[in-house]
């Protein structure tokens, strides 16, 4: 028996989502590993890595939907939390290279040897232990979000002002990580990974396992978000989104609620980044680019903000389209399409795919209910409207 909080109001979309993700998470790795290569149903390894990437993006989209869709905080800097989580994982992976790097230094990563550094900077200490790195994946984005949110929400920076300063935050981090003397590999970032927990990062088995873990993480993130938005806490968040001052006047500490979801959402984004890095094999400062964060917001908008399922769906759909178009002859037109997507979705499909589908079903259901009532009334013979035949 699952706890009440998980099953509460599991609608059809959510159930379908959970089943699909669980099925993909199990079937894709199994088909990749067990079926013979070249078989019709065998998923090639590159596709496993690609879909693993999509799943990580879906987690990022969920984290944005939690704050934007339910609490009205439009963060244009969520890519920064994603990238910070990624860097934490990347630092662990760099330390695992050990003496197998080009310069063969057992302690220092290659780029530090190249820059003639003689010892590890203090902030790299501890990253040779997976547990420490995993903790940092939560802690670094979480702490940044907490400090940032504490300052911003307490002084009631809202709306577009908040969006702009989150953008400034990720831009400042972008500039900082581009610097060589910052100690994170500068322009090139961290790459050339070898092992994760003793398994080869490139191996098929590891990739399949990472994909499986990403799906598990997506489901956990989904359950957490679901639990939050269907609880009383979720109701307060929606109230903050719709009428912040009124909620405050009713006696709620708005800033505490906002700070809580903002920090949680940053941790989720950090986890997404941490799972993303070993599957993609590189993390560099361009992940901090403000454009990336805005793009992540549009995934949520396409899928449907405030629907959770839609956010994950939007991330996969937009990124699948991106892969499809940028690898074909249509590549020069991708930016036109992406731009048009931004415009058209905000103008014509403000509820996104899932939101529009939901409201369409709603109207059909209420129309059907109205028709039922009408026919019932006619059978009773009470003031039934005359139907023109």
């Amino acid at each position: 028996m699952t706890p009440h909080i998980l099953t509460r109001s599991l609608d059809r979309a959510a159930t379908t989502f959970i089943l699909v993700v669980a099925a993909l998470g199990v079937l894709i790795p199994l088909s990749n590993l067990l079926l013979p290569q070249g078989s019709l149903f065998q998923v090639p390894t590159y596709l496993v890595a690609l879909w693993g990437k999509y799943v990580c993006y879906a987690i990022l989209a969920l984290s944005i939907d939690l704050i934007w869709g339910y609490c009205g905080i439009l963060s244009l800097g969520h890519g920064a939390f994603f990238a910070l989580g990624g860097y934490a994982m990347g630092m662990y992976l760099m330390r695992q290279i050990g003496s197998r790097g080009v310069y063969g230094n057992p302690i220092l990563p290659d780029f530090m040897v190249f820059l003639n550094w003689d010892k590890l900077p203090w902030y790299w200490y501890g990253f040779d232990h997976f547990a420490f790195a995993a903790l940092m994946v939560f802690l670094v984005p979480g702490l940044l979000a907490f400090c940032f949110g504490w300052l911003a929400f307490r002084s009631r920076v809202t709306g577009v002002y908040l969006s702009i300063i989150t953008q400034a935050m990720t831009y400042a981090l972008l500039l900082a990580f581009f610097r060589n003397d910052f100690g994170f590999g500068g322009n090139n970032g961290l790459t050339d990974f070898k092992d994760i927990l003793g398994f080869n990062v490139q191996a098929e088995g590891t990739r399949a396992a990472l994909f499986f873990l990403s799906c598990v993480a997506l489901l956990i993130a989904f359950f957490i978000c679901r639990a939050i938005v269907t609880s009383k806490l979720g109701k307060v968040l929606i109230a903050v989104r719709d009428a912040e001052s009124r909620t405050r006047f009713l006696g709620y500490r708005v800033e505490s609620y906002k700070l809580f979801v903002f920090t949680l959402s940053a941790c989720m984004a950090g986890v997404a980044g941490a799972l993303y890095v070993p599957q993609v094999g590189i993390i560099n400062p361009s992940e901090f680019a403000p454009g990336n964060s805005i793009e992540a917001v549009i995934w949520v908008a396409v899928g449907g903000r405030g629907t959770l399922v839609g956010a994950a769906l939007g991330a996969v759909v937009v990124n699948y389209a991106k892969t499809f178009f940028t690898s074909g002859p249509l590549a020069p037109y991708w930016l036109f399409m992406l731009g048009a997507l931004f415009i058209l979705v905000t103008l014509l499909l403000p509820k996104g795919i899932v939101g529009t589908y939901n409201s369409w079903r709603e109207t059909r259901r209420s129309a059907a209910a109205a028709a039922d009532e009408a026919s019932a009334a006619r059978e009773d013979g009470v003031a039934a409207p005359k139907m023109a035949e």
Partner: protein
Amino acid sequence: MFANCFVRLRAAFLSILLITCFALPALAGPFEDSVAKFANDEFSDTEEAIGEIAASGNQLAFPIISALQDGRLSADPETKKVFITQADSKIVDATTGAAVDKLPDNAATVRLNNRLRRTVEAALGGLTLMSPDPAKRLAAAQSVFKSHEESALPNVEAALAKETNKATRQAFAEARAAILLFKSDASDNDKLEAIAVIKARGDQEAMALLTSIGSDQPPLVAKAAAGAISSIQGNLAIWSGVQNAWYGLSLGSVLLLAAIGLAITFGVMGVINMAHGEMVMLGAYTTFVVQEVIRTRYPALFDYSLLIAVPLAFLVAGGIGVLIERSIIRFLYGRPLETLLATWGLSLVLQQAVRTAFGPTNREVGNPSWMSGAFELGQITITYNRLWILCFTMAVFAILLAMLRYSAIGLEMRAVTQNRRMAASMGIATSRVDALTFGLGSGIAGIAGVALSQIDNVSPNLGQSYIIDSFMVVVFGGVGNLWGTLVGAFTLGIANKFLEPVAGAVLGKIAILVLIILFIQKRPRGLFALKGRAVEA
């Protein structure tokens, strides 16, 4: 082609005529004998010839000796005639300056050895000190100031006595002071005077000179030098402050220009226009197109290209702005976050459209003659393009301010900013005001593009590099008030430039961003916030 040939012929003819005129007084006399010595192919004769020619004061002395230095001087040992091969590979007779068709078959280049090369350099130095061109004399005096070569002293003193140009005269005096300061047998009084002269110069080079005089100086001189050094240091610190302030003003004017349109759209309409940077880019590309047309059709108008581009850029960017407002933004009023996303998408489309039309690489936009070059003001160099951009920005700002204050549409805009519903009740067509406001903001961004095309690369990414900075300015200065934008832009520009030497360019920028984020906590609505009674802005 034919006309071109003619122009060249005419130029050649004129130059020959000129050289012949100069050469006239030297037709007879010892000068010819001296020149003939080059033909002996003996180093001692060559040395004598150099000395005599340098002392002759003949107009041809400089061309001959510089030709000798570059290996362009040839001599015919039989006829004792000497020839100069000019830089444009024309050949002239060294004694008369008359043109010669070709070198005689047995003419050989006059050879030099290392000792002679030094003699040649010294002779050239002396000759340039006497050069009729004041700019050349100035350069020669400055090089003597740096080298403080004792052997140049008589030449410098002779030149100083004859000099009439004020700036050059001072340069000679400084050169003389530099030599005296390092001359071991100069009297203390001479040295003290020299230190005073160098102190008055007061720049980096003067300080380098004073710090390198060594410790074996008489105590009086050493003390004066130390005093002069500390005075120069104070002077330099002030000038570097002035320099930073100027750079800051310049950066601030660029920021202001980029942000001012944003301040209007954001301030009046509460619309976040992420495509604002692309309006700047369109303005820059308008300039490019105007210059292309002028280059191919009316080259004489090139100096006016920017004046033509400014109204065109305003119309292009403003027109597109009105179009955007009518087709997209109109439907998103009251939903600022959605507007932000839609305009971001729009910026992607515009960028890619320009990339498709003009290519992804940087486009060449030229400086008109009145915008290129620089002048010195004390110890700092001010480039004309930066100065003009500062003036231009202030003019745009003043016009905009006057427009908002005194024109009917400005009044309507202010009314809509302060209270949209009240303004609508008073009969103001708010949607028309919105369209015009957006067009105005975009048009000003286009004008900014014209100015920025002069100092930045014109590429499809031009706008993106300004958009975050512009937002910072607007957020810092506060919306709905142009003065806030002005103060914000100049504060950020100057703060940035004063942080740069301390922290480096990138760290300085990061520090500014962090400071703004912290500042927003204190004043969430910027420096000059509009006061209102609304709970939720």
